[in-house]
């Protein structure tokens, strides 16, 4: 197995300050939001790597940096050994770009409403002046739609069908890596099942690699081979799927698994999580999870934990064992 994606010490800081004049008048400091802090991970070829986290965990930001839509503030992302932002080899960058695709959450905004489905699907190929004859029709059938749909416009389709069109577009350039940012969050359960099944089938048929970004633990458990748990932009735990779900090490992972509603949770009274996610502009000192952590000790308030390997899991916690 070789790594298709290598992420090393990836950090992204957003400047969310008010405009300069407001800052001067109101005597405000510059506000910096660290969306992603020092994240390192590898994605093996032909596997599904899932990133889970709640809002503000930085999971989508990582996704955008992996596909090259957003430059990192520090650290690097390499896909097939090429850093999209630093490489000087234009041919290699172009080749890698066509190997990366993305599927988005918003079913209405992800397809240009003024374009016919045929043109939408063929765009990745047309943009590189490749041959597009019959391409859209073939891909539509591959994702379970009819080749006649190519002449329609996006508004003529239901949510699930739109996501199939997005998948068809993502497949057009014959990518190796597809970053899926909450691909089924906007879908109803029965349609979600159709889309997840389709994604699994395509992965097996085409040998795809997925970076699967989601807040839904059941979906992640269904899809992933390896899971990374993010909290406030930090990777707090990373493990093979079964290890993570059966034997979580980090207190945040445990809390998340406990809090998620269970389908068989009749009369269950879960241990309730403490507090809420802190303001990412002024994150807590030391381990960012310490104010909500039931195990926290004084050390946690001052010293940010390094990731340690325990069994097959990597955990950033002083106390995990």
């Amino acid at each position, binding site marked *: 197995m070789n790594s298709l994606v290598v992420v090393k010490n990836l950090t992204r800081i957003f400047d969310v300050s008010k405009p300069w004049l407001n800052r001067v008048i109101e005597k405000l400091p510059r506000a910096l939001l660290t969306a992603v802090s020092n994240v390192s991970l590898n994605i093996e070829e032909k596997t599904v790597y899932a990133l889970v986290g709640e809002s503000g965990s930085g999971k989508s930001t990582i996704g955008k940096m992996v596909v090259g*839509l957003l430059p990192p503030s520090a650290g690097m992302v390499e896909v097939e050994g090429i850093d999209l932002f630093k490489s000087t080899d234009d041919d290699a960058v*172009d080749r890698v770009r066509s190997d990366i695709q993305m599927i988005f959450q918003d079913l209405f*905004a*992800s397809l*240009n409403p003024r*374009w016919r489905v045929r043109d939408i699907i063929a*765009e990745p190929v047309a*943009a*590189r002046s490749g041959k597009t004859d019959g391409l859209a029709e073939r891909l539509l059938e591959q994702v379970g739609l009819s080749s006649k749909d190519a002449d329609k416009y996006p508004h003529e389709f239901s949510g699930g069908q739109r996501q199939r069109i997005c998948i068809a577009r993502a497949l057009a*350039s014959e990518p190796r890596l597809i970053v899926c940012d909450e691909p089924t969050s906007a879908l109803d359960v029965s349609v979600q099942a159709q889309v997840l099944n389709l994604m699994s089938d395509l992965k097996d048929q085409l040998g795809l690699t997925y970076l699967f970004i989601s807040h839904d633990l059941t979906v992640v458990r269904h899809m992933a081979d390896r899971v990374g748990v993010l909290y406030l932009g930090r990777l707090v735990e990373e493990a093979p799927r079964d290890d993570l779900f059966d034997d979580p090490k980090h207190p945040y992972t445990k809390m998340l698994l406990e809090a998620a509603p269970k389908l068989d949770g009749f009369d269950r009274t879960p241990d309730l999580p403490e507090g809420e996610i802190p303001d990412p502009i002024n994150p807590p000192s030391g381990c960012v999870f310490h104010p909500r952590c039931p195990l926290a000790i004084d050390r946690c308030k001052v010293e940010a934990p390094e990731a340690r390997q325990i069994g097959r899991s990597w955990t950033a916690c002083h106390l995990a064992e």
Partner: protein
Amino acid sequence: MERIGRAWNSDFVWSFRHSPVAVVSLALVLVLVLSAVFAPLIAPYDPFDPASLNLMNGFSKPMEPNTFTGDVFWLGTDDQGRDVFSTILYGMRISLFVGFTAVLFALILGVSLGLIAGYVGGWTETAIMRVADVQLTFPAILVAMLIFGIAKGITPVHMRDEMAIWVLIIAIGLSDWVQFARVVRGATLVEKNKEYVQAAKLIGRKPGAIMLRHILPNVLSPVLVIATISLALAIIAEATLSFLGVGAPPTQPSLGTLICIGQGYLFSGEWWIILYPSITLLALALSVNLLGDWLRDTLNPKLR
């Protein structure tokens, strides 16, 4: 046939069919525009052919035989014996030509600048939008008069009458681009963050292609609305400028010029010289404006 059937039943056409104001406005606009376009065929006289003019016909009352020649003019004649009905038809040609061309000029300028400002952002955006803000603080007529004055100063005397129409178009167009730019910039800011634009970026599309092929088609519906309402305003602006004597020259009279001429005879009893061009101007501006209002209500889901 099926296509026509579907178009006939589409929400857009349906709401048109069920809006009496829109139907009447469109009919009126069509009648006025067509009669302007086919003025040479419809007009009983050519008001700009000096040979056909008879000074004896001056100040003929509408529908009454002239005391000297016995000729009957539907809407009367002016001081030089020109048929008012014919001058209105020819005047409307100039008014509509200036209006359409000025709006087209403003539209192209405003949409391009708005797209660039919204998509590129940063200093480019600041520069474009500050210029727009500054221009908005002056009344459009003032801006147009300023441009007209400058142009008059730099064009050679013998070309002034020829150039006047084009100067008018540029003056009105330049005073009108701001609202296009503002609306398009706003819409572009929304569209550029949508995922379909991200997907296009991911593919490696160049910014120019993204702006033209992806964003532009999605910001056009408010542009259509503004263009229609601007057309009414541009026609009025042209009339105002011409009325003030800084617009179309008397050799190529527009509706505004006609009103200006007629104004001189208002108190001597020759009311028809000013009344009929004014009514035409009113009908034209009002119907275009009502059509624009209806378009805005139909295309803007927030107002529905």
